[in-house]
């Protein structure tokens, strides 16, 4: 089986700055990988690279079998990215945002309902404009749109940020479920110890390349959960 994410000596420039210098990593189907590292190490950049949102300057890479240098566009529909920003329309209500993203992702309205219920977006919150939500509530809506999308690769940039305790646990269970369903999950986080996952692989990056990886061999053997 080919790995789901396969980066070889990737270099990515943001402006003129080499945010990733020489990064090599493999990820297989169903794997849960936590990416840690100091501020500015390149975690967010790595996730955006895997999403096909950034061009690779040097090196080779493929995601889901699509070449990152030539078929970047084809990767995109298969990944779900939760970034530092929420990607919601501030002037639309929670209900309307969810409706839009569900329709765009061809999800049924029952799926939409269940995602909203799961993330505690019911009752009065449905008709509040996203602009007026609290930080944590906004993150919840953002997560709900991701759940509706059912991507094959989940790229989560600090998914626990701004969430309350119950919310953080919810995210953990979401991740495990997604992985069980065969999705690969990449999590950039500073709260690794909080991520209550039993079986997890931790990649540490610094200065734009990998400095340690607890599951390197694991990844190579393509063990599938």
């Amino acid at each position, binding site marked *: 089986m080919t790995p789901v994410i396969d980066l070889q000596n990737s270099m990515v*420039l*943001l*402006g*003129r*700055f*080499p945010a990733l*210098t*020489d990064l*090599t990593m493999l990820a297989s189907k169903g794997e849960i990988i936590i990416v840690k*590292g*100091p501020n500015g*190490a390149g975690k967010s950049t790595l996730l955006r690279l895997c999403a096909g949102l950034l*061009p690779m300057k040097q090196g080779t890479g493929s995601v889901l079998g699509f070449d990152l240098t030539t078929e970047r566009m084809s990767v995109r529909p298969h990944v779900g990215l939760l970034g530092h920003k929420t990607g919601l329309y501030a002037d639309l209500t929670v209900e309307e945002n969810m409706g839009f993203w569900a329709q765009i992702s061809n999800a049924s309205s029952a799926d939409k309902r269940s995602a909203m219920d799961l993330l505690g977006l019911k009752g009065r919150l449905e008709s509040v404009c996203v602009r007026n939500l609290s930080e944590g509530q906004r993150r919840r809506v953002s997560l709900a749109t991701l759940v509706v999308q059912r991507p094959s690769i989940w790229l989560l940039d600090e998914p626990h940020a701004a969430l309350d305790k119950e919310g953080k646990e919810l995210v953990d269970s979401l991740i495990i479920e997604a992985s069980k369903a065969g999705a690969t999950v990449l999590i950039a986080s500073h709260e690794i110890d909080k991520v209550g996952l039993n079986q997890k692989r931790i990649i*540490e*990056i*610094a*200065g*734009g*390349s*990998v*400095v*340690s*990886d607890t599951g*390197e061999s694991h990844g190579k053997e393509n063990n599938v959960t």
Partner: protein
Amino acid sequence: MQNVRNPNLTSSKGTRFMGFLLLVGVPTLVLFAFFLTPEDDNMEDAVRLLYIHVPMAIFAYVAVITTGIGSIFYLWKKSRWWDTVAHASAEIGLIFCGLVLVTGSIWGRPTWNTWWEWGDVRLVTTLVLFLMLLGYLALRQVPANPDLRAKRASVVGIIVAINIPIVNRSVEWWENSTLHQQSSLTDGKLEDLTLFTLFLGLILAGVCYLWLMTHRFRVGWLQTEIENEGAIGVLQERIAEGTASSTETIIKEDGEGEVR
């Protein structure tokens, strides 16, 4: 053009030769234009502007078309060479186009009794071209990711180049809304000496374009080169950031590197 041997200079044998040609050619042109050619029956001395106005116009076209071609090739091949060509050519195009406007206006004063005529299609389309070039160069000046900027500039560059046939054909398409000359070069109405001087002007404008182009290209190329050199330093610094963060793990990392 890619290999610039001495990075401190943007000149070479070729450019010095072109410079020499211009040094000799321009006085010759002045001699012909001002003293040897006759004045026009109804345009009098102002006709002498023909010898700059027309060559400038033609090579403004050439410059903008080069920008268009450079842009297309950049989008296709993603090569910095074409991007630099497109940029350099647009700058020269702007200068030439500006000169067309200025000489045209000066010429218009005695012949049409006005500096500018808003209803004239050729004048207006030329001005639009000038403004589009300004916009293109404004985009190129914005501080941003060079690749991103190059791509966007290319899209604009192509749209600017589409304008050229419109400027050129405008006098025929809207015959009755222009004061401006239609093509007179091809009708053979010009006297021999006038024609010769005009061709001399054309050749000189061509040399001038190539000359400026070579220099501007090299400057542009060196600029990116310098930036890239800076980038290597930044890259090393960035890699060091990683190694400094944890010395133990590096050893592990190196070990794994061999396995790969």
